């Protein structure tokens, strides 16, 4: 199986690798894992006061497609509202990266990761409002 040029580009020059402080109130952390292949993915968003995602980071231990999918998503979510980020679908990721059918689950993992990050941010936000 050969990777598309876009997957190789993201794999060799991954965007936004790293971490934010997961205890920061403005940060939402999504942790997901794919038991089939043992891949683990952490995706974090940093949300401004206006509800716009200012920055994003990821760390993925997995195959090239999983790394490329998470790298791409960190680029896509920047400048979006959290609501808009929730509309990202794995099919868009798979299409952009030209993932073969056997690698579709990597794009699903990235979609799950952004949803988990938004859910974590909302949970913190809701709790903060309740104080």
């Amino acid at each position, binding site marked *: 199986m050969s990777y598309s040029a876009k997957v190789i580009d993201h794999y060799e020059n991954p965007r936004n690798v790293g971490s934010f402080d997961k205890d920061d109130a403005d940060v939402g952390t999504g942790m*997901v*894992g794919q*038991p*089939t*292949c*043992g891949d683990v993915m*952490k995706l974090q968003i940093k949300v401004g006061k206006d509800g716009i995602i200012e920055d994003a980071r990821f*760390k993925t231990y997995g195959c090239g497609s999983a790394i490329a999918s998470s790298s791409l998503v960190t680029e896509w979510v920047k400048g979006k509202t959290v609501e808009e980020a929730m509309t990202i679908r794995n099919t868009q990721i798979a299409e952009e990266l030209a993932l073969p059918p056997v690698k579709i*689950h990597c794009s*699903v993992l990235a979609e799950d990761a952004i949803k988990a990050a938004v859910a974590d941010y909302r949970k913190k936000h809701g709790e903060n409002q309740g104080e």
Partner: protein
Amino acid sequence: MNQLTADFFTLFALPSAFRISPAALEERYLALQREAHPDRFAGADEKTRRLSVQLAARINEGYQTLKQPLSRALYLLQHLGCDAGLTDSSALPAEFLLEQMECREAVARASGNAPGLQRILESLGRDLENCYETLGRLLDDKQDYPAAADLAQRLMFLEKLRHDADEAMFDLQDGNRKSD
């Protein structure tokens, strides 16, 4: 050749259980291989020859599946009609995944450091051994299949971690050999 459609436990004349005798599996594997070896059917008609090739492949697949404890557990769960939920990316708690991420980071940090990798592999080996003992109790003694499926999911990550650590160790030794 109804051996082609038999499940792996039946094919290898083993009880449908997690705890199996490795010696019995090995013995039965060699016997089956001899029986189904395509060379024995060289003079047979085409259909028989084709079936013998299929059977030889099935025997190898069954052997590989039953030999490794995790693939054996997953096969047993499937055989018992339980879905191990391996495609569900949100099944495991974030704490477990975070811990797994930290373990992967530790392996990455230790690459190039043989004693560090050795320590990780030893501690991981003990953890895995304990997990497989627990898995045996859950599957064979308690018949608690949901708990067994949950543990099997976690083991997929632990085995991947061991694979990565093994690979880092291999690269290190390979590098040492090349520089000698």
